[in-house]
């Protein structure tokens, strides 16, 4: 059983490492490292929940080669990303950019948290104030009712 698990794990890690094919790699380790970092943050548009770095899709292969070509030609990391965003849109970025149409996505949860905190604060303050102020004294009418009720009990 353990041997089987080990085998499965080995097969899995091997296939994960195989996505970047040997022929794609650049000789310059610094450039190659930049290419790996960029492609790990870009989405494969064929298998949409994998990064370009992980995906075995043919388009992912083409885009990995393209990224390395752009880097070799002297593009900055940001220029390479922009090159692909222009063609495939923001969706290719696994991390959504911070811009007006994503404010709701980035800040919505915090806004909800603040709203909830404000509600709790309001509730606690009101409850605190209610506990501090002593209840109003009984009116003569209420006194009479109370006396009558107490008398009934006896």
């Amino acid at each position, binding site marked *: 059983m353990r041997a089987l698990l080990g085998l499965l794990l080995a097969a899995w890690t091997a296939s994960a490492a195989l996505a970047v094919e040997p022929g794609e790699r650049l000789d310059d380790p610094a450039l190659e490292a930049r290419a790996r970092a960029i492609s790990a943050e870009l989405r494969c548009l064929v298998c*949409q929940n994998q990064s370009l770095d992980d995906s075995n899709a*043919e388009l992912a292969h*083409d885009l990995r080669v393209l990224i390395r070509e752009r880097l070799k030609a002297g593009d900055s990391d940001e220029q390479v990303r922009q090159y692909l965003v222009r*063609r495939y849109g923001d969706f290719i970025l696994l991390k959504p950019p911070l811009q007006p149409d994503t404010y709701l996505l980035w800040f919505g949860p915090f806004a909800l948290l603040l709203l909830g905190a404000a509600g709790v604060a309001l509730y606690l303050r009101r409850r605190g104030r209610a506990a501090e102020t002593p209840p109003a004294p009984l009116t003569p009418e209420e006194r009479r009712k109370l006396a009558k009720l107490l008398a009934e009990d006896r």
Partner: protein
Amino acid sequence: MPLRRLLFLLPAAAFAGLLGYFVAALLNAERRDPSELPSAMLDQPAPDFALEGLGDKPGFARGDLAGQVVLVNFFASWCLPCKAEHPLLTRLAAAAGVPLYGVDYKDKPADAERFLGQYGSPFRAVGVDPGGRLGIDFGITGVPETFLIDKSGKIRFHRAQPLTPEAIDKEILPLIRALQQS
């Protein structure tokens, strides 16, 4: 009921609203596939290119499309959906009244020639894109994909799926007519 009491109904109302939105979105699922992406190339100028032709036939370049409304279809002989799409493409080419250009995507020229010989070519010209680079410049994620380019060279329609009769009759043909008049 005092107004303050109504405030307690607010979360329930918000939840009901959200639920309604989800139900509507689910019932609408057939028309809206979440894996279908909005095209980043829409309303952008078409990329520049010059493609070789198939065999000894001439290819075409961006300049050949200038000043007219044109359809561009990416296809490949190895792509089954392209085979299925082919009769519709032929119909579209006949009905459109504008030239249809084909880009043979990551294909062997001999296979593509056999494909077009067997099913007939609806294309004014076919260019080859053996490395798939023009495909990336157009932002395609596979084949077949179809583009409509206006007189100024801007991409005005992009379908990242095989054509359907509905897409041709309700979207593409009316848009071609509108673009030709502008």
